[in-house]
């Protein structure tokens, strides 16, 4: 950041070009993101939905949408908290094994003592699922695990089960399937990030630890992990922000219903339901604001880390 071009010749104002070059970005951002963001917050204070063919509102209702968002429904459960909880549970079920596996793989493949060949090939293979269309991946799991699908056929043929298992009708199996898909799609990405992190650590540290007689386990817990901590935190927080947006996989797997018993309904699926035929912009706005606050809070961590790196 030290070398900046200063206008050298008299009469040429280069500053103007800075504004011109960044103008398209900011105009687009203001039109397609900032304005909609403000409209979303504004909407959350209004009653505005469609009931059959009738349009109700928009009428100003203050915080009523937020109150109803956090009040118990007929079954006594608070929808918003339930879906927030679902999102967190589904995320954790995928993210915890993902981080453990990624950490192990990253340490293994970057170990200078083992000096493993074929890193590039390995990265290529584990990253591939990340590019698969989530909707298609979910549809594939749906057909594979349906009561008449191949998984059940195999289980039946080998006598492991007597009658086909309805994987999509059980809370546990639906959640496991969703987490498994998320795990498969994201562990490669995490592994590559952590590998880059480990490779960024000064190799002398490892050598010094070894000379001091540390074993692999000690090296991992005393050297690798503490030095990797910032990147690990970054990876976890960004994964969490991504997890909050979980939509495609459970949406397609459960046909938007979050079955069974809304146990796989995520926050964004809930938002999507309000945006559907009912066009309940008031409630959708309130859900968005909650989602915004949570992700903005998490973003603050990432922002601080990246800006610190920039000031250095």
């Amino acid at each position: 950041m030290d070398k900046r071009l200063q206008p050298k010749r008299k009469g040429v104002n280069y500053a103007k070009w800075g504004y011109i070059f960044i103008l398209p970005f900011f105009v687009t951002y203001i039109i397609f993101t900032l304005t909609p963001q403000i409209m979303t917050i504004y909407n959350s204070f209004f009653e505005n939905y469609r009931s059959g063919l009738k349009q109700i509102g928009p009428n100003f209702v203050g915080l009523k949408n937020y109150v109803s968002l956090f009040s118990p429904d007929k079954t006594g459960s608070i929808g918003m908290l339930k879906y927030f909880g679902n999102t967190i549970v589904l995320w954790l079920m995928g993210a915890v094994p993902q981080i453990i596996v990624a950490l192990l793989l990253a340490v293994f493949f970057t170990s200078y003592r083992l000096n493993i060949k074929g890193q590039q090939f390995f990265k290529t293979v584990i990253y591939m699922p990340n590019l698969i269309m989530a909707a298609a991946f979910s549809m594939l799991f749906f057909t594979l695990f349906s009561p008449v699908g191949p998984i059940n056929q195999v289980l039946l043929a080998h006598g492991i089960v007597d009658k086909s298992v309805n994987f999509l009708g059980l809370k546990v199996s639906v959640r496991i399937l969703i987490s498994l898909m998320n795990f498969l799609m994201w562990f490669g990405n995490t592994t590559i990030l952590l590998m880059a992190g480990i490779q960024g650590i000064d190799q002398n540290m490892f050598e010094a630890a070894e000379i001091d007689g540390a074993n692999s386990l000690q090296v991992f817990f005393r050297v690798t992990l503490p030095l990797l901590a910032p990147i690990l935190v970054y990876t976890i927080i960004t994964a969490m922000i991504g997890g909050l947006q979980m939509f495609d996989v459970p949406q397609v797997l459960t046909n938007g219903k979050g079955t069974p018993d809304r146990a796989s309904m995520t926050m964004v699926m809930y938002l999507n339901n309000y945006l559907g035929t009912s066009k309940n912009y008031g409630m959708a706005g309130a859900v968005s604001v909650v989602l915004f606050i949570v992700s903005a809070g998490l973003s603050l961590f990432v922002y601080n880390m990246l800006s610190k790196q920039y000031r250095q």
Partner: protein
Amino acid sequence: MRSNSQLQAGFTLLPKNNFFVNLKNAWTDASINIPRGMLNSFFIAACSAILTTYFSALTAYGIHVYTFRLKKFAFYFIMAVMMIPPQVSAVGFIQLVYKFHLTNSYIPLILPSIAAPVVFFYMKQYLESVLPMEMVEAARMDGSGEFRTFNRIVLPIMKPAIAVQMIFSFVSSWNNYFIPALLLDKAEKKTVPIMIAQLRSADYSKFDMGKVYMFILLAILPVMVVYIILSKSIIKGVTAGSVKG
């Protein structure tokens, strides 16, 4: 062609004639026009990839090279909004699209990609590592205009970064489901993910399963082919916009 029960009874490793029968059935399906969907998705994804990389490079160059009063503010603003998920402004976005009668149009799916904070951040980091200021100065001495310098000298230097981000942006647009599903309801405008989700909401038991698997294959194949060809540069881009080690 094998019946559903035969198909579900087991797998064979090599595609046989059934593969081409399934391909033909899927390709010519009356209710799900997959070739059209792939064309639509390709068009949106290609346009988004071009816009997002060009304008992110332009913005990064603007902030990297010039000194102006709002420079710092602009940079930290983009960093601050980088992680905000797009879903949280969806309500206002949809209202805006309805207001301007742009449902079933690709404009609201393509134009917003001009402002892509993460791509900007990657381009900015890349510029810092590859662009010597002397080069910009030399171009000026030779009387090159500012836009000309960017388009003719800087863009070619940024080619590797542009290629990586083009692929990422293409893939994320190709796979994008949330917003397009809310905006596109005409059959001939639908994109691939919407069609896949439609398969799920249809009564699948009536479906020829060979055809369903073929639809899924067609949805993911183009991206996989590109990936296998360009995997090396894609892997390099994975660490984009993250903390340096």
